[in-house]
């Protein structure tokens, strides 16, 4: 923190760091200076002129070299004749600000009157009505009466779709450019801009498709009027009818804090309905932003197809059964299996669910498996980022390494925060087999062939060590390039360094090698055990980290284990739907128990299906990629006849005579705290604690920060990794996976992650359907040409394990040659790097 400056605002003396803007200094002491264009997260522009204040400065006498004094000895203050915009004015020593004089109030009235001349005043039908800064500030400062002739207002477009998700009402827009600046400054998707000039100034989009950004929803939060609205909430409810519940996004490992707005409504038969999801401020996690997937992909939870009673297979058919019947049957089969139980859970489950499932399984002598394509959760428990880590604190002196990860696709808010850190001066190293958007901000870009991610990291470790063991062939060029050594030195020399590793091209085995390589690099360069140092897994699901912590580890031979298990118990995973090989395995398994929200392919193959509850109906905790345990709260009553995922194993356990806690999630957490050392001391009470957040985003002065919710229900608790507790982290042996050599006529198929895939949550959100591509694979244009493919060719993709699907061919010049990029969860059952062949089915000329 820099030097402090003392100033007086409306009679209150305050000391703030040099460089603070007057508007923010006032905010700190509870004085609201109204703004429209200013936003504490954006660069000030001083356009709306709403924040005008009277500014007085001490009078400096050049002759005496002293500040002049009043007769009473107080400093003489000279006030500028004109009002000044407090959003563009940095504080200076001795400054005196008057924010509520008659002159200032008059100025505010003037500006509001101007804004209202072009405003349609359609508050009664405006979605922003009730949480609208323009409305609120007009009531506070505006003129009561209009002097502008209504007929002279411009009539403009009321329903202009900027993209699939966001609509623009041109009449309501006050040209504050918050949306434009957010897209440009914060996320670097400058796809909307002003067109024309003067009163004709309008927001337009120039991307194809329109408003092409994963962050577009945030512009509706910070829009100070009802100009930008989301398609899901538009004309759906009035803000004052909504109740708010705190929640955590379950789409990715960032764990964005959410507020679920619900309403009990007639048109839904008196049911409680989720009307929208908004970000909830947590400056340590998501600040006040969320991505569009997190914002819009919630309708699945209230979908009509939800399972609402247990099912039991009778005569080959799944038929409804009572809970008692289903539980009895399962308990009976479990005791008969004598330890032959395989429990599969995914990172979609909460810690409490995973803990109880694990308890049940171990007491029965069974085995648990994490359903994932990524390894390394054991290592993040050791060298994960230290307690107190916050991307917002990263800037000069910090190096961030992102490896095997298309960060914007895998975890958009991590992308946003890493980009911000780089903007502030953090050094970014991007190590990836193909170009990604994140590279725009990178100081070092290292490219390795698909499959050589661990080798690339190993090469960095080697570059720093005196001993130079042999490196795999795949990275020898990279190793010789000099860039690698420069990057390694930038990493080693940094005061703080973090590594984010993702799932680009990853399968379990390679992911494990990568995580170990990253661990070795961190340990070798002494970047562990401290805040803003350590390893972050960009997991495929929200709670993979929690699953590892609760004892769920991935299985290296899931298919074999399923096939040989007398009883398989699957929670929140659809292996049979994802991969035909696993469906086959499941067919040869003994008794299959599934707990799910929907009748998935896997559930369809089960002997007993338990209807579970979605995250908006219950309590629980997720542990995010930074190992922050965060609590979500029930927002709507549970669907009748369903049970929380933690309650189902508890009830089975009770039947078997085990003491499992199934009544309340917080009691399960008490047991976790008692039995899982890393979680010692964690309680729901502690998870609900909130410390001061800056900027102050309150619901009662929406103009300052937008409609993002204030956090009153907990910032969560970041766990200490073993390294921070002083435990030694041994260097592990890194065994890079052997390079796959495609046979003649074959290609290397690499899995990648797309934000909008065909996963359950996205698929059931109709709003997002236009954004989900048809099944496709991507090829470098040169490779495509040599194989006779053009953009749009329909081809048959045959994977090495025998699976075959029809896909569309897309050309992507950012890909290396002879690589088939295959998006996960998009209709192609790809588990990891593999070989494949591609045959033309039909050429279409798009």
């Amino acid at each position, binding site marked *: 923190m820099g030097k402090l400056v003392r100033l007086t605002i409306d009679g209150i003396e305050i000391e703030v760091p040099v460089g603070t803007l007057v508007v923010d200094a006032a905010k700190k002491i509870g004085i609201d200076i109204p703004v429209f264009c200013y936003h504490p997260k954006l660069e000030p522009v001083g356009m709306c002129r709403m924040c005008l204040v009277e500014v007085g400065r001490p009078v400096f006498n050049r002759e005496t070299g002293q500040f002049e004094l009043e007769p009473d000895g107080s400093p003489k203050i000279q006030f500028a004749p004109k009002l000044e915009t407090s959003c563009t004015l940095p504080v200076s020593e001795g400054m005196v600000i008057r924010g509520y004089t008659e002159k200032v109030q008059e100025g505010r009235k003037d500006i509001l009157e*101007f804004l209202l*001349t072009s405003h349609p005043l359609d508050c009664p039908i405006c979605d922003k009505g009730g949480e609208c800064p323009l409305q609120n500030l007009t009531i506070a400062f505006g003129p009561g009466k*209009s002097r502008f002739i209504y007929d002279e207002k411009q009539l403009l477009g009321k329903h202009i779709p900027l993209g699939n998700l966001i609509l623009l009402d041109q009449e309501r827009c006050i040209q504050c450019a918050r949306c434009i600046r957010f897209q440009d400054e914060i996320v670097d998707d400058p796809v909307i801009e002003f067109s024309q*000039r003067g009163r004709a*100034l309008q927001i337009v989009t120039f991307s194809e498709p329109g408003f092409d950004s994963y962050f577009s929803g945030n512009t509706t939060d910070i829009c100070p009027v009802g100009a930008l609205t989301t398609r899901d909430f538009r004309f759906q409810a009035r803000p004052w009818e909504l109740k708010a519940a705190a929640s955590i996004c379950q789409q990715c490992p960032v764990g964005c804090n959410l507020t679920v707005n619900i309403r009990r409504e007639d048109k839904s038969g008196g049911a409680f309905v989720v009307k929208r999801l908004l970000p909830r401020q947590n400056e340590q996690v998501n600040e006040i932003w969320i991505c569009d997937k997190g914002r819009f992909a919630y309708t699945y939870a209230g979908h009509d197809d939800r399972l609402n009673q247990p099912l039991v297979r009778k005569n080959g058919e799944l038929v409804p059964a009572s809970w008692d019947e289903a539980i009895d049957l399962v308990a009976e089969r479990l005791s008969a299996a004598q330890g032959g139980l395989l429990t599969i859970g995914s990172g979609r489950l909460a810690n409490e669910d995973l803990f109880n499932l694990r308890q049940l399984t171990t007491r029965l002598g069974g085995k648990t498996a994490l359903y994932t394509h990524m390894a390394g959760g054991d290592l993040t428990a050791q060298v994960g980022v230290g307690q107190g880590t916050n991307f917002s604190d990263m800037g000069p002196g910090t190096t961030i390494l992102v490896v095997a990860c298309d960060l914007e696709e895998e975890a958009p808010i991590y992308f946003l925060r890493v980009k911000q850190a780089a903007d502030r001066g953090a050094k970014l190293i991007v190590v990836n087999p193909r170009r990604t958007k994140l590279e725009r901000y990178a100081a070092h870009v290292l490219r390795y062939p698909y499959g050589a991610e661990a080798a690339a990291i190993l090469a960095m470790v080697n570059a720093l060590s005196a001993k130079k063991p042999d490196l795999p062939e795949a990275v020898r060029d990279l190793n010789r390039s000099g860039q690698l050594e420069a990057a390694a030195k930038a990493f080693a020399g940094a005061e703080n360094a973090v590594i984010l590793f993702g799932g680009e091209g990853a399968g379990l085995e390679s992911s494990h090698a990568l995580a170990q390589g990253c661990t070795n690099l961190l340990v070798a360069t002494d970047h562990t055990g401290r805040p803003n140092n350590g390893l972050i897994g960009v997991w495929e699901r929200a709670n993979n980290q929690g699953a590892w912590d609760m004892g769920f580890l991935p299985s290296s031979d899931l298919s074999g284990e399923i096939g040989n298990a007398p009883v398989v118990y699957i929670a929140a995973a659809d292996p049979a739907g994802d991969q035909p090989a696993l469906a086959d395995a499941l067919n040869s398994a003994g008794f299959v128990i599934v707990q799910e929200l929907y009748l998935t392919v896997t559930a369809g193959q089960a002997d007993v299906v338990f209807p579970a509850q979605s995250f908006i109906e219950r309590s629980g905790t997720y542990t995010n990629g930074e190992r922050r345990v965060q609590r979500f709260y029930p927002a709507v009553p549970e669907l009748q006849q369903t049970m929380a995922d933690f309650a189902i194993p508890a009830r089975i356990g009770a039947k078997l005579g085990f003491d499992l806690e199934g009544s309340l999630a917080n009691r399960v957490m008490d047991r976790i705290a008692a039995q899982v050392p890393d979680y010692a001391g964690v309680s729901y009470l502690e998870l609900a604690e909130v410390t001061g957040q800056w900027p102050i985003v309150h619901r009662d002065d929406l103009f300052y920060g937008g409609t993002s919710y204030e956090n009153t229900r907990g910032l969560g608790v970041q766990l200490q990794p073993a390294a921070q507790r002083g435990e030694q982290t041994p260097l592990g042996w890194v065994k890079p996976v052997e390079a796959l050599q495609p046979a003649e006529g074959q290609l290397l198929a690499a899995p990648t992650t797309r934000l909008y895939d065909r996963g359950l949550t996205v698929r059931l959100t109709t709003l997002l359907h236009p954004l989900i591509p048809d099944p496709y694979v991507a090829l470098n244009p040169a490779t495509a040409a040599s194989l006779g493919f053009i953009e749009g060719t329909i081809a048959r993709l045959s994977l090495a394990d025998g699976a075959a699907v029809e896909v569309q061919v897309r050309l992507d010049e950012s890909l290396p040659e002879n690589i088939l990029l295959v998006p996960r969860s998009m209709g192609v059952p790809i588990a990891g790097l593999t070989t494949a062949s591609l045959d033309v089915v039909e050429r279409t000329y798009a």
Partner: protein
Amino acid sequence: MSAYILLRHRDIPDLNQLDVYLKNEGFAAFRKAVTTLSPDEVTDIVKASGLRGRGGAGFPTGMKWSFMDKNNWPHFVTANADESEPGTFKDREIMEGNPFQFLEGVALAAYAVQANTAYVYLRGEFWQIAEQMDRQIAELEDAGLLGDRLFGKNYSLRIYTHLGAGAYICGEETAMLESLEGKLGQPRLRPPFPPSFGLYGKPTVVNNVETLTNLPLILQNGAGWYRKIGTERSPGPKIFCLSGRVNRPGNYELPLGTTFRQLIFEHGGGIPGDRQVKAIMAAGASSALIVATEEALDTPMDYESVPKLGAQLGSASVIVIDDTVNIDWVVNKTVRFFNHESCGKCTPCREGTYWMRHLIDRIHAGGASWQDVLLLKDVAAQIQGKCLCALGEFSVEAVLSGIERFEADFREAARDRQAEQPLLVGAGLRSDNG
């Protein structure tokens, strides 16, 4: 020897040909500067000459250069050739008739601030001048007067032209820089000023065409010679753009301090039909209206005297209004102009000029009451002092001075409507929703 300093082409034929310009001591000043003077010496000479910016603000040119941040490189020089003020047409004549003197001025400014790149930002309508200038720049490069390691010294300079897209606001220096960067032409916040944060965030000099055209002769003949022209605090010649109700409109290069009367009657040949001068706008559409009293007509046109009349000299675009013209008509023209040209960035200008346009249209069309005139005055006063840049502030100059100083004209315009209340609903109020 020409009688002119800036408009020398008027008595030196073909001065826009490089060989003619060179024969008339062309680029001698630049050669002298680069080969014998240090950049700071050039700046000091310009400072000593008292040259003030001719774009409108009258800021001392040498002082502006000395503000260039010497810890931040590279530096840029940009010539503001956006000439968009209504009633201003001096830069065009310079660039058409005496382009090389202007380009030499650009080069001198660039040398003084050690910029290796200079841009000439021309308004879009000047595309023909731009094409010509591109050829002239190429000729200079061929002649070794622009390019790398000039005159065998370690100084290189390239000049480029850039066309705007037809926006008045791009004459505002920061909007011009935005436009030059390829962005929407909207002004930036000041401070920081261009000498510390200019083009692409680098220290930048923005000078008007006429200002720069002064430089070669100042460097050749010295500051003392220059100071003999004009007044003590406003030295040098100025091109006055005379237009409106005069017999001989046009550009007149005269010393600063020439009176309105001399310009209008001696040089401009007086008013057609020997009518009375009613009002004068000294700075184009951005002017307050000066009541043409005898005292006003005898006021010297320099940066200090004109403000005493409640107006500004600005770019010295003198628009003469005689007694056949109603001031509400004049105000209607200026308001419509600013409404059309407002960039829309800040609220008071965007909304205020739009509102003023509707009011003055009604007033001028005879459909308004005196209350509407008062409302117009109110709206103008409401805009004043709250805008992001000068455009918004200029938009009310003619309105406020016009209503205050020519009240009778507005009384006359509003006479048909006796209503004491301002019109609150239009005659054509939509009744389709009951």
